């Protein structure tokens, strides 16, 4: 094993070890980038190993952070967070969920299913996981917990549903993949649509099942009233505002009023307007919402900043090539190759984030898969589902991290890990379905345009 491979593995193992100490994930990532730069420099000077990682190289981190700063697409992140915070602080979110619980209170798992449906709608407005997870956590988590839902089920639902945003268009992940493979982003958007909805349906099916099988997972509240006309009217009124808001965001994209990024701003503005109409937009509410938007946005970006420095140095040490050489030593037939690639991607997703994987692996494997005669859109969508799963898989699951950042303090990471587990299995089930029935992906793109 070369010194590069050894250092790459060490850098990786250090990361896993150090985040378990509980020191902030962002600064473990950032700190290791410097520690391993120093190690590489020392090895170079003292022992003559030329590793190619020095201060000049490490300073690319700054250019990479700048690339995040001027990324207009990411402007949607604080805007959606603001929208969620505003709906929550102004009481619109709790009105919505309370009313939903009056109707669904008698349906086992009803609240989690409402969260799933809202999440699917939300996924069609944003492609940024941090934004959807935070928004859904604010909308749904408190009410589910207050209604006696098992914390692992409640948090698992929010995490999993929150990740649908990166599969259901618009999605920055699909945009990046299309760019990397030089293929039409429209094909990928349409190809990922049905699989995204299938996953949403699988979640709902699971929630229905589990709440019946395990009576304490999603209990019917003791004070659940029978569904009355008044309750239905209340729901109608409460749902009207936030769902209308989501549809306004969707609509402004769909009718060409705004790009997806701008639509986020329209949503934020709309949330403020709603609060105002309901006479709940006090100055204190507004300043609270604004401040929490700052802190939530900043903690997510802290992770971006740390992660970009870490992956730069890991790549410099040759971590990419290590993965690459492992992938290409595969002794399988065509279908076996595809299955292996997806499986390896799934495994890598436990530790790496989607940007890493789509930058490193996708350009390598896509030509191989294509030359084996497979449809590239079909393959890329399955690849995307694997990466969507990577947000959920411990230890490095960004959806888990984002949720952890906004969940009540007594919810620990372990609870969330337990909660996402069944959803990871559902993801694999969804993946198998797409693998077996290709038209689930390829039909929609072939119909359009």
């Amino acid at each position, binding site marked *: 094993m070369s010194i590069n491979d050894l250092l790459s593995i060490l850098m990786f193992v250090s990361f896993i070890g150090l985040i378990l100490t509980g020191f902030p994930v962002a600064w473990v990532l950032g700190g290791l980038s410097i520690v391993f730069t120093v190690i590489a420099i020392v090895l170079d000077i003292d022992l003559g190993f030329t590793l190619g990682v020095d201060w*000049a190289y490490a300073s690319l981190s700054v250019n990479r952070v700048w690339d995040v700063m001027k990324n207009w697409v990411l402007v949607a992140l604080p805007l959606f967070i603001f929208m969620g915070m505003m709906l929550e602080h102004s009481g619109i979110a709790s009105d919505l969920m309370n009313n939903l619980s009056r109707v669904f209170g008698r349906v086992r798992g009803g609240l989690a299913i409402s969260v799933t449906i809202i999440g699917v709608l939300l996924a069609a407005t944003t492609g940024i996981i941090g934004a959807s997870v935070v928004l859904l956590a604010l909308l749904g988590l408190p009410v589910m917990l207050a209604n006696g839902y098992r914390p692992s089920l409640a948090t698992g639902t929010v995490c999993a549903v929150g990740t649908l945003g990166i599969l259901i268009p618009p999605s920055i992940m699909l945009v990046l993949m299309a760019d990397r493979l030089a293929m*039409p982003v429209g094909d990928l958007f349409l190809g990922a649509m049905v699989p995204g909805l299938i996953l949403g349906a699988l979640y709902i099916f699971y929630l229905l099942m589990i709440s019946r099988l395990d009576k304490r997972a999603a209990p019917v509240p003791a004070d659940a009233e029978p569904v009355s006309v008044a309750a239905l009217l209340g729901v109608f009124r409460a749902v009207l505002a936030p769902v209308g808001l989501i549809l306004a965001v969707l609509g402004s994209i769909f009718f060409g009023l705004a790009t997806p990024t701008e639509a986020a701003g329209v949503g934020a503005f709309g949330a403020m307007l709603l609060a105002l109409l309901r006479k709940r937009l006090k100055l204190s509410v507004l300043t609270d919402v604004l401040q929490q938007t700052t802190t939530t946005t900043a903690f997510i970006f802290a992770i971006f900043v740390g992660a970009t420095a870490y992956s730069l140095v890991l790549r410099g040490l040759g971590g990419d090539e290590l993965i690459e050489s492992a992938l290409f030593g595969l002794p399988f037939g065509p279908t076996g190759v595809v299955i292996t690639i997806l499986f390896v991607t799934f495994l890598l997703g436990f530790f790496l984030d989607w940007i890493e994987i789509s930058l490193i692996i996708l350009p390598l494997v896509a030509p191989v898969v294509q030359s084996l005669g497979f449809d590239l859109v079909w393959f890329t969508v399955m690849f995307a589902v694997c990466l969507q799963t990577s947000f959920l898989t411990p230890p490095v699951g960004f959806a888990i991290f984002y949720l952890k950042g906004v969940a009540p303090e007594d919810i620990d990471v372990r609870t969330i890990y337990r909660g996402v587990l069944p959803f990871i299995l559902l993801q694999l089930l969804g993946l198998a379905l797409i693998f077996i029935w290709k038209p689930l992906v390829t039909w929609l793109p072939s119909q359009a345009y």
Partner: protein
Amino acid sequence: RPPGVASESQNSTGGTGFEIVRWRATSSFTSNLPIIGQPPHRVADNLARMSGGAFQMQVFEPGEIVPALEITESVKEGKVQAGFQWVGYDQGRIPASTLISAVPFGMEPIEFSAWWYYGGGRELGEALYAPHNVMPILCGLTVPETAGWFRGPVESLDDLLGMKIRFAGLGGKVLQRLGASVTMIPAGEIFQALEKGAIDATEFSMPAVDQLLGFSRVAKYNYFPGWHQTFSAAHLQINLDEWNSLRNQTKTMIRVACRAAAMEVISEAEYLQGAVIQDFEQQGVVTDMLSTEILEQLRAVTREVLDEEAAKDEHFAKILKSQREFSEVYRYWKTRGYLPRSF
């Protein structure tokens, strides 16, 4: 295989008689892109072969280590030893960079190569980048872009100006001057914005590249010619200290590999476009030329914009003057030597 680093000891030859060089290079175009994505990989490949493996240049994808628009600065500081890009991406930092990468109503590709290699262009380009510690080597020369993809027909200048259009660079400035509503929404959002009508038109690249992005499905009017980019040149930028430390033998290999890449790129580009446009027509896309009248109006404003830029920047003025002087003389040949395009 260890990742690339700066050249080792000057005299090290690894027994091949060639200088041992280990470089990291980055590209602003993904390797899956036909034509313009290829040169850095071809150059790296040829350098390795020519030197019997002594010259190893590892080429990274855009964003893999260096963001696509941060190449000059990274090369300047020696963060990477080399970078391949369309240097017009520097126009916010080095305004004249656009003149050696693409100019509205500028030269044709072969005309540009005549100017670059024989008309003093290379020296001007090197002088432009020397203060930034960068050596630019022409390494990719390609065909014009199209005038853009439109959701509706463009029969007059008013049609063009009435549209919300995504348009980069000096061409964008020209349209703005004429009163068009120009935006610069991110590349990843163009397709959807065009599909849904958040914008009415976009310029992007040459037909063979536009085809990959699927614009033909959402915009049914593809206009020509690429008045805003009559040629596109890409350069391999090398950190000047690294360059100066190389032996002449190695420098020659790099220059030769880049000239070969430039020739390959333009050949591939010329080869591919025709069939692509034919295919657009079969998909029901209108592939018309903008009227001479529109082009003349655009050219008049382009001249104003270029003159204004020249007044603001010394390098810009010098290079523009050189290009105009060359083109004036070249015109005697250009208008006589070739058959009219319609033949």
